[in-house]
């Protein structure tokens, strides 16, 4: 294991300079160089984002939308400018289709509350077996509130979405919404969103994609996917915490009742009744995460400056390399081997508990996640109680993956 088998070449190396943009990557952990392989949980932040947020607070900040003065107008412009940027980033038709939320979770809850209230008992929502709790629990809660049906469509043993089974799930025409991940945070599987959208639409259902993972690694084009709802979360996109995005077709947003009430989402208010602002403001109650939204803008600009071609090539090369390297570790089993996949690799290693793997890796400066990854039902489906998971970002290097594999080999040595 000490010899490196197939070092990815140019593709993976081309992003080497981006490491300089991430100050945290030069930190030490337990006296070792940090090897951060938990980007799927949350990515690190480039100085472009950090500096943008700090600069905003230092020189150009005030509450937005209602201020009739310079600072407020400039901050409003910066905030609303990010809406344009996000619309472009996701391939949306109009800026009005972009609603800012705290994170993906809130975006999905917004849809579950608002669009969900338009579903009628007898109608069903379909989720898949590989959903993150964020795309399962809100629908369970909707079911328990309103009496709609919740259907779970299966994955195959290698962790792909079972498209035949999905067709059967949709066949009775009672499905109102299909809510499925665009990339699994456990298996790394990338689903065929366009095919899912076509099937859903043919069955008269709307479709929501949880793009929390995918949007970090591939260009999203909601128009090309023919999606109805799409959610992403800023902190995985190298952006700040506290900011996420719901994209939805304008006519859906217009038909949907508001979710949270308060300032900024109203048109007029009297004690008796209130009328709602136009979309997207109808869905943004109260003072939003202004600084974080502006920080998200910096993150998207940063990603665009690298480009998804380079990002995709880098991560594909890394993933192939990692699968090969990890495949050499004795007793290591990768959970999730669908052909379409990204740089999120879950694994078990012989009898070593994933928590012990994570702690022992951490003692060597290597950060991986271990547990159920907020996907408990998927764990049961795959026949494991927990996995360890390494996930990659634009700053991940082949050397880091080699270090991971070598350290895993040593850990295994401890336990035999």
């Amino acid at each position, binding site marked *: 294991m000490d010899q490196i088998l197939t070092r990815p070449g140019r593709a993976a190396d081309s992003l080497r300079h981006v490491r300089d943009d991430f100050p945290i990557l030069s930190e030490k952990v*337990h006296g070792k160089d940090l090897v951060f392989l938990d980007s799927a949980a949350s990515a690190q932040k480039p100085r472009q984002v950090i500096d943008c947020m700090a600069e905003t607070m230092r020189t150009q900040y005030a509450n937005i939308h209602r201020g009739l003065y310079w600072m407020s107008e400039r901050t409003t412009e910066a905030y609303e400018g990010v809406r344009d940027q996000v619309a472009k980033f996701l391939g949306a038709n109009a800026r009005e289709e972009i609603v800012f939320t705290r994170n993906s979770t809130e975006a999905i809850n917004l849809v579950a509350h608002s669009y969900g209230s338009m579903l009628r008992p007898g109608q069903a929502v379909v989720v898949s077996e590989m959903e993150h709790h964020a795309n399962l629990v809100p629908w369970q809660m909707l079911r328990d509130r309103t009496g709609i049906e919740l259907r779970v469509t299966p994955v195959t043993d290698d962790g792909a979405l079972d498209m035949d089974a999905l067709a059967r799930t949709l066949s009775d025409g009672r499905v109102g919404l299909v809510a499925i991940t665009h990339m699994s945070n456990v298996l790394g599987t990338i689903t065929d969103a366009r095919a899912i959208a076509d099937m859903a639409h043919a069955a008269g259902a709307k479709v929501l994609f949880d793009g929390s993972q995918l949007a970090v690694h591939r260009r999203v084009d909601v128009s090309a996917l023919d999606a109805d709802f799409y959610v992403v979360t800023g902190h995985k996109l190298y952006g700040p915490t506290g900011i996420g995005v719901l994209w939805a077709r304008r006519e859906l947003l217009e038909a949907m009742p508001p979710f949270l009430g308060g300032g900024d989402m109203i048109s007029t208010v009297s004690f008796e009744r209130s009328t709602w602002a136009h979309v997207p403001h109808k869905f943004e109650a109260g003072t939003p995460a202004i600084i974080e939204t502006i920080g998200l803008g910096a993150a998207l600009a940063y990603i665009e400056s690298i480009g998804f071609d380079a990002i995709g090539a880098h991560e594909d090369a890394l993933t192939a390399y990692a699968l090969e390297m990890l495949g050499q570790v004795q007793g290591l089993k990768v959970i999730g081997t669908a052909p379409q996949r990204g740089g999120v690799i879950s694994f078990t290693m012989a009898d*070593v*508990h994933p*928590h*012990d793997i994570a*702690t*022992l890796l*951490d*003692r*060597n400066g290597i950060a991986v996640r271990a*547990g*159920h990854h907020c996907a408990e039902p998927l764990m049961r489906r795959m026949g494991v*109680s*927990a996995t360890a998971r390494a996930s990659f970002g634009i700053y991940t290097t082949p050397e880091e993956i080699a270090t991971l594999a070598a*350290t895993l080999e*040593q*850990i295994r040595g*401890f*336990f035999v």
Partner: protein
Amino acid sequence: MAQDDLYRSVVLERAKSPRHAGDLPDAPLHGQGGNPLCGDRVKLHAMVDTQGRIATLRHETRGCAICAASADLMAERVTGQGRAQVSRLQAELVAAVETGIAPEGLGELSVFAPLHQHRSRIRCAMLPWSALTEMLNDEKDR
């Protein structure tokens, strides 16, 4: 990576080949504890002598090495001890994992002191102890 000071051989050995594992179907005392987050589960079975001291303790542990080793070392250490001693030991272990410095007299249990650098794993080591305390308290309340 050299042999790791947290996963010292005693931890690995006890996790792999526990000396006090198993059931005690006829035991009067049974307890259990679990951590839904990581799936660790500990079942305890105990005989108590006339003075209320633990005569025999067996554990059935499913979980990580830290939890399994902790259960086994605990079973060994508390045999012959009463409730007061158990709770003193537990307090000492807490002090060790919180500070990284093992109080005198903690003996082999001091192997867990490095957990103070791995705070998310402290509950793995403490799970058998909280199950034990709960079992002994239940018995007192009866």
